[in-house]
């Protein structure tokens, strides 16, 4: 190995590590790395578990080795040539290095990777190995062999023609398929091939390399003859009718296709408008704005009510209420969904009620806890309904620029935006509680708790999701049309659960440290207070984000 290349490699590794550390400032990278570290830590903590011993069984190790060998060779073969960094091509290739030195330089990162992976293997499986250090050496060397194999396959694949590469690729896949089935059969006694494929009848698939008398003497033929002689239909196993239906439908499919293809109309002109409509619909759905169904009749304008609550910033809430009242389809869908969920909860209580009527006995305390659990399930309805009411920043995201010109405080605007979905969620929950109360009686404390907790939950959920909608709307207004990444969505989902952690933790803390009869009400009160504080912080955050939103019409 050339010293200059070693130095270059070392410097590049150092730079990559620094870049990696700097990259951790990005939340998505940090979360990804944290998840990986957490996963590895979890594995390390449980490394003495029996399941780890299963991974170092000879059968598992052979399977892993086969996968690594086959995978390395195939990956290298698909590459068709070694992959270098673009600057390497520019500088290393033009420098006075031999081919061997360049290949070795290319393999150096793989060697370090093999060592790191070997150490991880040792850390996780050392307690299940007889000779851990010897195994570590073997694992590292085996990985190095795999890297050599991949590099060799890549170099070889680069020298053959495109056509030969294509053919050999299929050959490799065929061989791997057979090896996989053989391995699974011998190592794990897993039969992927059913036994009937060895019957003479199945040999018909290998025509003309078959023996006709064997086929004629198959058990299937004998059964068919017996079936026939017993006065049944000529089709074996009653297959005549299904075959007839299948044939008729098959002919129908072919005929309809031929008729369709014979149509002379110009599909391009008629498809233009339809395609545009479908694309617009898809775009609106991706942006979370829902699909607007244009009514044939003109929508009548609605007057602003005289109530003071709908004046000023309240007019926004009124506007969203009007939009909600006109979005009948979405309300009906939400109502159907909520009624299924509420019906399930009420049915649970009804079953308990029936059992009690039939003589079942349950202590009062347990019945109360069961009812409280059902009330908790009803609170969860807000999680499910939140997405069904897009009468917030989802629809108003396109009006952000206009909202900025209104003489209203950002806090009030944020509160007005999330008010309609919150009210709708609470309305459905109220219906659920009323239905539940036909079989149960909540005590005053629980009733008060529900009265205060449900708005807190709905407010928190809508606050979290609206932060996401507001950021997405700001991005769209800034000209970025791509939808939110799955990681971002995952973060929002996680956050919509985490916002309840402080309240839950504080309630449990207070409940554990007070032993008087006021412990429970005090715990509830603490939890509610903390939750409302979190809600306030969320709305303030939403307002701050709206305040910081800057966009010019030219952007």
């Amino acid at each position: 190995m050339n010293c200059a290349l070693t130095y270059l490699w070392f410097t590049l590794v150092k730079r990559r590590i620094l870049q990696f550390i700097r990259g951790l400032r990005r939340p998505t990278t940090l979360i990804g790395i944290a998840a990986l570290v957490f996963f590895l830590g979890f594995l390390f903590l449980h490394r003495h578990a029996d399941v780890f011993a299963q991974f170092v069984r000879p059968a598992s190790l052979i399977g892993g080795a086969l996968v690594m060998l086959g995978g390395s060779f195939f990956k290298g073969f698909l590459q068709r040539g070694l992959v270098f960094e673009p600057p390497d091509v520019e500088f290393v290739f033009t420098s006075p290095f031999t081919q061997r030195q360049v290949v070795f330089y290319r393999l150096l990162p793989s060697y370090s990777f093999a060592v790191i992976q070997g150490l991880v293997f040792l850390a996780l499986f050392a307690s299940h190995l007889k000779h851990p250090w010897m195994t570590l050496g073997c694992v590292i060397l085996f990985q190095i062999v795999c890297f050599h194999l991949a590099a060799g396959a890549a170099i070889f694949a680069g020298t053959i023609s495109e056509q030969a590469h294509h053919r050999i690729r299929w050959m490799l896949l065929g061989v791997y398929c057979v090896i996989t089935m053989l391995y699974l059969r011998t190592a794990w006694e897993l039969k992927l091939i059913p036994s009937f494929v060895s019957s003479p009848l199945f040999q018909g698939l290998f025509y003309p390399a078959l023996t006709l008398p064997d086929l004629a003497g198959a058990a299937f033929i004998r059964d068919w003859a017996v079936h026939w002689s017993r006065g049944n239909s000529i089709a074996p196993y009653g297959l005549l009718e299904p075959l007839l239906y299948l044939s008729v439908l098959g002919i129908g499919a072919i005929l309809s296709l031929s008729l369709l293809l014979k149509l002379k109309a110009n599909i391009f002109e008629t498809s233009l408008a339809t395609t545009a409509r479908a694309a617009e619909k898809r775009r609106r759905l991706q942006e979370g704005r829902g699909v607007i169904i244009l009514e044939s009749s003109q929508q009548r304008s609605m007057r602003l009510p005289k109530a003071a609550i709908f004046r000023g910033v309240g007019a926004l809430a009124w506007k969203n209420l009007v939009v909600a009242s006109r979005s009948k389809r979405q309300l009906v869908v939400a109502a159907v969904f909520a009624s299924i969920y509420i019906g399930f909860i009420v049915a649970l209580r009804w079953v308990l009620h029936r059992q009690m009527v039939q003589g079942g006995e349950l202590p009062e305390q347990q019945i109360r806890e069961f009812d409280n659990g059902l009330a908790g399930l009803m609170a969860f309805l807000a999680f499910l309904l939140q997405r069904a009411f897009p009468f917030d920043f989802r629809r108003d995201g396109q009006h952000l620029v206009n909202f900025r010109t209104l003489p209203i405080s950002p806090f009030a605007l944020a509160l007005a935006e999330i008010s309609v979905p919150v009210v709708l969620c609470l309305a459905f929950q109220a219906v659920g509680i009323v239905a539940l109360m036909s079989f149960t009686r909540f005590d005053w404390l629980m009733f008060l708790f529900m009265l205060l907790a449900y708005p807190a939950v709905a407010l928190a959920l809508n606050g979290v999701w609206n932060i996401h909608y507001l950021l997405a709307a700001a991005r769209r207004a800034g000209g970025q049309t791509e939808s939110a990444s799955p990681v971002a969505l995952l973060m929002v989902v996680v956050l919509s659960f985490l916002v309840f952690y402080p309240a839950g933790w504080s309630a449990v803390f207070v409940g554990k440290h007070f032993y008087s009869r006021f412990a429970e009400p005090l715990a509830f009160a603490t939890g509610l207070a903390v939750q409302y504080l979190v809600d306030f912080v969320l709305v303030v955050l939403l307002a701050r984000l709206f305040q910081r939103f800057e966009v010019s019409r030219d952007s």
Partner: protein
Amino acid sequence: MNFAHITAASAPGASTSLSAKLCNLLASPAEVFDELVVAPPAAANWRTPTLLVCLAGVVVLHLSPTRAPSAAAIQHLIQAGTISADQAEFLAGVWPLASGLAVCLAAFGGTLWAAFVLWFMGRVFLKARFPILKSLEVVGLTGIILLLGTVVTCLLIATTGDATAHPSLALLVGKLDSSHVLRKILDLFDVFHLWATAVLALGLSRLTGVTFKEAAFWVFGYWLLARIALALLA
């Protein structure tokens, strides 16, 4: 794609008769396929040999005494209550008919299937375009080897008295049970099976324009190795 060597077909040349093709296929298949590749499609090239295979199969079934359902087997079915005496009489007549029908269905169905497999190999694995009718002709003509194999197998059965005898490596192991895995695998090395497979590989190589080795990898892979794998794994 190497479609040119087939579409150039229209070039008129001295074409041999079907009977000559069938005879030549046994002696010099390469010449037959060379002629087939450049000739326009002819349905007789696959229909006639397949009908001959059907005919040979039915005739052999009727002539071979070991293949007929024995009276003991029918008696066993009566005793088991599976069929009545009248039905047994009917069964004695139906069984050979069912066997004959099965042979004919297998011959036509097998020809179509093998043609599809051959065409698929050429189209997907070897990236060559050729009409499926051509592969149908190759498979149909190769059926003549099956016909010969059927006759030889029946003669062998008549000579040895063993209903499971085949002109294969299994002859070397004597009276090994027919359900034994080794016997099943040795049975796959039937002279006529190998011959037919090699001729199919030759046909595929001529249709696609690839080397015999490359075509043989896929044809033997399916018609021989896949069968061995199935015998081992099933």
